């Protein structure tokens, strides 16, 4: 009984860490303007809309976070092999990984913005100074939480993969969950706040992103402040659910019917999420209604 209770406690802790990691990851990528919505930040000057938005699409979020979490986990693992206390080792590893993120963010901003010189987009040194440290702070939270949950999975729950490999796997999954859930909210709802609510952005409006705030020009910290309330929280819940439910079904039901217990519980959970998704879809169709008449749309 005791190992199961211990396992459930660790599972709950990893779920909480994953929720914080997902939220911080999405907010970091929105402040840094990484991921798919960055296509508009890159496109805007080419359409004549100069802006002061940070622009650091180093890579897609999953490979970028795969690298940073793997780096943090690998360094933490090396420090632990040097007999350093795990807590200190994880913090040190994540700090070093965050510096690498900062280097990538700086070179990406300078390089990508310099490529827009022919369209008159300046490289703002004050943007670089004020935004980079904020993205690094959020990246540290995301990397630290992910590496810590990987260490718990490895050391407390006994997963066979070594820490750096777990860091790579969960880093990629973190980026995939965060970008899938958070990107539309930043890309549509924040960058195109001047477009109609409750409709996609018309393709003809591409590049015309919102560039002004209540006072002066909009900056990327405003974007992080806006998107973390729904996009960041949703990303956190998404990644938290993935980690928690994956571990929960394994810890509790792995020994039932020689492994088939965890499989059946997994299938049941997939069916529950399918029903919830269908409910959301039907709810939207009923409550929001169609944009045009059916006949007009099909003609």
């Amino acid at each position, binding site marked *: 009984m005791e190992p199961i209770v211990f396992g459930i406690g660790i599972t709950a802790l990893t779920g909480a860490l994953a929720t914080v990691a997902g939220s911080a990851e999405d907010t970091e990528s929105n402040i840094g303007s990484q*991921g*798919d*919505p960055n296509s508009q930040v890159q496109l805007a000057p080419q359409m004549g809309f100069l802006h002061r938005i940070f622009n650091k699409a180093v890579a897609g979020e*999953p490979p970028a976070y795969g690298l940073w979490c793997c780096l943090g986990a690998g360094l933490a693992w090396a420090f632990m092999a040097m007999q350093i206390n795990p807590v200190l080792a994880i913090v040190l590893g994540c700090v070093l990984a965050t510096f690498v993120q900062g280097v990538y963010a700086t070179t990406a901003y300078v390089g990508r913005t310099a490529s827009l010189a022919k369209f008159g987009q300046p490289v703002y040194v004050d943007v670089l100074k004020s935004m980079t440290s904020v993205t690094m702070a959020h990246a540290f939270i995301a990397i630290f939480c992910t590496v810590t949950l990987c260490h718990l999975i490895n050391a407390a729950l006994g*997963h*066979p*993969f*070594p820490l750096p490999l*777990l860091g790579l796997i969960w880093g*990629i*999954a973190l*980026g*995939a969950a965060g970008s*899938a859930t958070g*990107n*539309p*909210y930043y890309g*549509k*709802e924040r*960058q*195109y706040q001047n477009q109609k*609510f*409750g409709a*996609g*952005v*018309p393709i003809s409006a*591409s590049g015309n992103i919102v560039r002004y705030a209540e006072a002066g020009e909009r900056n990327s910290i405003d974007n992080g402040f806006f998107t973390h309330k*729904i996009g960041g929280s*949703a*990303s956190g819940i*998404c990644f938290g*659910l*993935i980690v928690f*439910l*994956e571990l929960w079904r*394994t810890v509790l039901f792995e020994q039932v019917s*020689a*492994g*088939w217990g*965890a*499989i059946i519980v*997994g*299938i049941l*959970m*997939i069916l529950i*999420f*399918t029903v919830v*998704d*269908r409910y*959301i*879809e039907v*709810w*939207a169709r009923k409550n929001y209604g*169609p*944009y*045009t*008449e*059916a006949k007009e*749309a*099909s003609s």
Partner: protein
Amino acid sequence: MSAVAAKPAAGGAMNPTAMGVGVVLTLILLGICWYVSPGLGLMTLIGVIIGGVLIGFGTHFVPVGGAPAAMGQAPGIATGVAMLAAGAGLAGLFGGAWAAEQGLVVAVVTGGIGGGLMMAITCMMVNFVYVFGMGIPSASGKVANDPITGDSQAEYKSQGTEGHGLPFVSFVGGVIGGILGGGGGTLIYIELLSLYEETLPSIMGVPAAQAAQVMPIAVSAAGIFAVGLFLVNAVLTAYNITGTIEGPHDPKFKRWPRAIVASAVASALCGLVAVLIVVPF
């Protein structure tokens, strides 16, 4: 024939010559493996190829809209094909590796369910953000009616877009893609792990009684090769569908035979390297 005179190839056209060359290349690579390591090595390579093909086929199901989806201009999940497929498949591989000691079938199915669960949660949260965060209902741009539910789509597309969100068929496609990817990745891992467990102790000169000492190396090497093979097959498929796809109802889905052959060749080559590192010459 110059490049200018060449006929523009349609995206979905099959090239029988290229497919034939691909099949022959796969057979040659299998032949090389049979020559250097008949038995266990060959069986491992066959498992790796099946796993790679499952990943390549499964990636076609994953509804990915790329950058336009991030602005609500096209349906699908707003990220890259290879990245999302890798995220789901690796989450599956994580579960499958944990269940490795419970046998091949249980581990592969566990890995598949892990990938499917990751995609089910992600797809549900995508629709949650679209509906409750942005007030946008789901609509497909490729079909008039959802093939599963029969819901009409055209009137729910907002003006000037190709659709948005994840219609139910895309959700189901995402879950199927996650299941196939997670299962395929786990199959590759289990096959390589059993090969390394068998061969590494003798290569490294470890007595049979202390064979457990090489387990961490075997697990790490098999895990890294599984992750690498996953990315190879997911990226190949991303090229095949040119970046975005809505799911199994998308016309681009019909291009899957091409990706199967390409995945088989790529997996055979990478798998051969994974086998050769433990073959003594």
